[in-house]
């Protein structure tokens, strides 16, 4: 055992240990340096990333603004929605739980499959809505059976409710789940179960009704499970929308239409405020909120009475004889005819090799303009139209707002058609035929109008020739809307007076077409004009065989019945337009509805009563 050797070995070991220790210290210094870099230099960046990791923003849906009628009656409100939700991870056997629930509340296999699919898609702690819109009794039952229903939680949410259902469906519209193409930058739309306005006022004022989202900052773990709420900011409820409608009159209008398909409009001739805008048949907008079945949707879609169409603004009908005021005014204003212009009506006239008939087979004899309006003589207006020409008639229609949307605050309004020589050339590439002028003179042929346009037209006649337009909304939130300027249409008062007198005779002269449907209460008398619009041309063969009675024809072939009017005659206030689809005749089907409506309007007299003033918002936050 050489001691030198042992010493040499020890020396080497010591030297190398020192080198190793030096290396280790260097590495320790690197580790400390790395800590310094991560925890001091870059700390704020990692701090931010850590917060993003654990803090999740959750949106709180705001309460949708209510919709009220002019007197504060709730037309659309929010109702408590009693529902049962399931948190899958809180039950061992999801299917058993659902079966147990089915014994307590109505819950069929179809719903069960849907819920199971939903559960499979989501993570186990995400609540899934199992049943909604429970009655209080059902909700209480879920509460009572709580112990048997592990994982099921009773919950109260908010859902849109339309108390007047069918009667207002077309005006108010409805809310439904957001479609993919409707997603915009509002984060609320991403919220599962969020509903937006799909039609009517709900759609037109959706942004204002919607309100702004509240938010809740919650701490979550890596799996997204909420640990606790850090901060909560309540959203702002949507604006309250107050409408011009009088629900009393609206309900009356809807009911007055009975089982018929059609439209009834009542509006203020001076301000354009629409008091009733009924479309029949209706549908229950509440169904759209909860979700329609395929069968229900198809039934609505395929119904020949088109319950989904808002007929006052989107239904296009030939105005028929209600158009004769336009022909008359075009003639008078162009000074081509005067009020005493005489025409002999034999019941038929001819132009070229075409025959043109009056509705009255035996003819009216010689009539002037007042007589022609009173008796709705077709031959008289063929004559006036032929003399005046289609372009002057079209120009007059333009002044009264026909052929273009009225601009009412509802989606899907249609313009209708007022033809002219230029229009025909542009759309059909053909030149105008004089025979077409004759047909246009009595509101047939190419002409189509909406019932609201007719109400606007008759308002403009009744208010002395001012360009009033219909409007539906008085205020949204704190924003109040008022009737804009109603400039004069530049119609001579004398000519307007002639037309109004003609309309007065329709109802108040014993030989008027609607004398039997007059309002006899003194001071409430109405003036108006009947219209019976052919749905299809009556062929020569049919005419030869004798015109069939309307009642003998299939419903779809019968004439449309129209009536436009206003009351009281002495100081016009309320204008009305009624159309009963395939109602047979204006005097028979539409005039009684219009008469009842104008009488009820004057009885209720909403325009003389104090309307509510806007309160700002719905007030309270989500409960």
């Amino acid at each position, binding site marked *: *055992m*050489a001691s030198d*050797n*042992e010493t*040499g*070995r*020890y020396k*080497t*070991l*010591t030297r*190398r*240990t020192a080198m*190793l*220790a030096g290396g*280790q*210290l260097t*590495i*320790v210094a*690197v*580790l*400390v340096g*790395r*800590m*310094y870099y*991560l*925890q*001091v230099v*870059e*700390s704020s*960046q*990692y*701090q931010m*990333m*850590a*917060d993003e*990791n*654990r803090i999740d923003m959750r949106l709180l849906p705001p309460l949708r603004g209510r919709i009220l009628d002019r007197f504060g009656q709730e037309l659309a409100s929010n109702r408590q929605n009693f529902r049962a939700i399931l948190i899958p991870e809180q039950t061992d056997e999801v299917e058993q739980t659902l079966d147990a629930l089915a014994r307590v509340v109505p819950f069929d296999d179809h719903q069960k499959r849907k819920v199971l699919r939903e559960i499979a898609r989501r993570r186990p702690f995400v609540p899934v809505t199992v049943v909604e819109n429970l009655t209080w009794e059902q909700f209480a039952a879920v509460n009572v059976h709580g112990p048997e229903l592990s994982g099921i939680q009773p919950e109260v949410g908010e859902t849109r409710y339309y108390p007047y259902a069918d009667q207002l469906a077309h005006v108010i519209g409805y809310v439904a789940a957001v479609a993919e193409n409707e997603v915009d930058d509002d984060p609320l739309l991403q919220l599962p179960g969020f509903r937006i306005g799909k039609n009517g006022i709900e759609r037109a004022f959706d942004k204002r009704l919607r309100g702004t989202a509240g938010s809740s900052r919650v*701490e*979550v*773990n*890596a*799996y997204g499970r909420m*640990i606790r709420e850090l901060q909560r900011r309540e959203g702002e409820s949507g604006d309250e929308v107050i409408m011009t409608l009088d629900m009393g009159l609206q309900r009356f209008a809807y009911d007055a239409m009975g089982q018929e398909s059609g439209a009834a409009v009542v509006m203020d001739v001076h301000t354009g405020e629409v008091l009733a805008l009924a479309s029949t048949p209706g549908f229950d907008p509440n169904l759209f909120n909860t979700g329609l079945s395929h069968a229900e949707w198809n039934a609505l879609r395929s119904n020949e009475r088109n319950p989904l169409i808002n007929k006052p603004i989107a239904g296009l009908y030939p105005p028929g004889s209600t158009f004769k005021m336009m022909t008359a005014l075009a003639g008078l204003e162009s000074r081509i005819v005067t009020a005493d212009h005489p025409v002999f009506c034999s019941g038929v006239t001819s132009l070229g090799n075409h025959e043109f008939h009056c509705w009255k087979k035996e003819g009216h004899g010689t009539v002037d303009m007042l007589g022609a309006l009173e008796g709705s003589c077709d031959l008289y207006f063929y004559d006036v139209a032929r003399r005046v020409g289609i372009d002057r008639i079209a120009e007059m229609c333009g002044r009264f707002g026909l052929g273009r949307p009225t601009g009412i605050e509802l989606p899907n309004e249609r313009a209708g058609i007022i033809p002219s020589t230029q229009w025909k050339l542009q759309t059909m590439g053909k030149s105008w035929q004089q025979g077409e002028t004759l047909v246009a003179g009595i509101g047939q042929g190419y002409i189509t109008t909406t019932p609201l346009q007719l109400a606007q037209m008759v308002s403009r006649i009744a208010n002395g020739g001012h360009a009033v337009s219909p409007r539906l909304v008085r205020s949204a939130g704190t924003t109040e809307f008022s009737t804009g300027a109603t400039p004069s249409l530049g119609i001579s008062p004398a000519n307007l007076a002639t037309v109004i007198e003609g309309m007065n005779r329709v109802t108040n002269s014993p030989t008027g077409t609607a004398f039997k449907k007059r309002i006899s209460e003194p001071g409430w008398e109405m003036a108006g004009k009947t219209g019976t619009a052919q749905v299809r041309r009556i062929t020569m063969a049919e005419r030869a065989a004798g015109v069939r009675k309307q009642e003998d024809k299939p419903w779809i072939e019968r004439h449309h019945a129209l009536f436009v009017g206003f009351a009281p005659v002495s100081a016009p206030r309320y204008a009305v337009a009624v159309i009963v689809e395939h109602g047979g005749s204006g005097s028979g089907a539409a005039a009684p509805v219009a008469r009842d409506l104008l009488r009820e309007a004057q009885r209720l007299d909403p325009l003389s009563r104090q309307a509510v003033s806007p309160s700002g918002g719905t007030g309270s936050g989500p409960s």
Partner: protein
Amino acid sequence: MVSYMASRHRDLTLGAKLLMVNWGLVFLVTLIASIGFAMLYSSAGGSWSPWAGKQVVRFIAGFIVMIGVALVDIRFWARWAYPIYAVTLIGLVAVEVMGSIGMGAQRWIDLGFFQLQPSEIMKLALVLALARYFHGISLEQVGRPLMLVAPLILVLLPVVLVLKQPNLGTATLLMLGSGAIFFLAGVRLWKFAIIIVAVLSALPVVWQFMHDYQKRRVLTFMDPENDPLGAGYNILQSMIAMGSGGITGKGYLQGSQSQLRFLPEVQTDFIFTQVGEEFGMIGGVVLLFLYVCLFAYGIAIGLGCRNQFGRLVALGITTQFFLYVFINMSMVMGLIPVVGIPLPLVSYGGSAMMTLLLGCGLMLSVSIHREHRLPRRVDGLN
């Protein structure tokens, strides 16, 4: 039996040995382990179950074993170094064979009450065997390349077996730890240079033989944000946790990253992350300082020993300790790829705890028996 114990010193009595135990080192070990208990208590969201409680029980068991090992005479370890190595190697082969005959890729032998991991024991057995070998040859002999063939085989056999498991972490530890012993024994530096060049040129070949998950770890290390929800998730979340801790940390039990389970399995290899998040840089540096004290103790014990075997054992184990700390912390802080190496005495896990305390026991044994002079030929085996 007695002949080879040709020592000038009397054998120490048990009482004397207990007095000679380096209690400073024992205290340091207990202190570091206690930090581990506290962190595990926090990992579980402030609860003794499921980790902290078990860890305490394991530590107590390991502690008793450590003291037991410390009291065993250093000459015993020297004599049994090769047999221990041989048995452990057989154990490694056994788990390999068991794995290949369809018992799954398991790395342990189930002894019923305890799961023995040969690869863990090998970390110490290899140190003992190499120390024994270099103890037996002179510095001059160390200079002969042929004399290095035997120890290289001692190293490569277990390394290959461990790599096959596959356990990259342990293989790395075995190689680097052995390298340190070669270095301390006086192997010339140019030979290391040759080995390093050889290893570097072998890397492409190694890459070929690496498992996909190992390749992915390396690639992920290159760019962790490339795959933030996949393999890069751990590194990124770990760095976020450390970084967001700042200088003073978020406070005990307040680490959002670890408490909210953004870091999966934080209680094992990534426990240092939680130290960094809850106690900030101060906490990290304090823990690192405790480890440095531990290394210093180890080096002092090694240099204070009168026989080469004891020196190499103490320094070898110390180096291994250092490698654990270095690899684990570097990995957690995104300096090197993720390799499965725990933070010694702090990370949750029974096998590693046992190995480390056994290692401490050996260091203590070296310390107690530092005055023994061992003959170069310990027994007839050499």
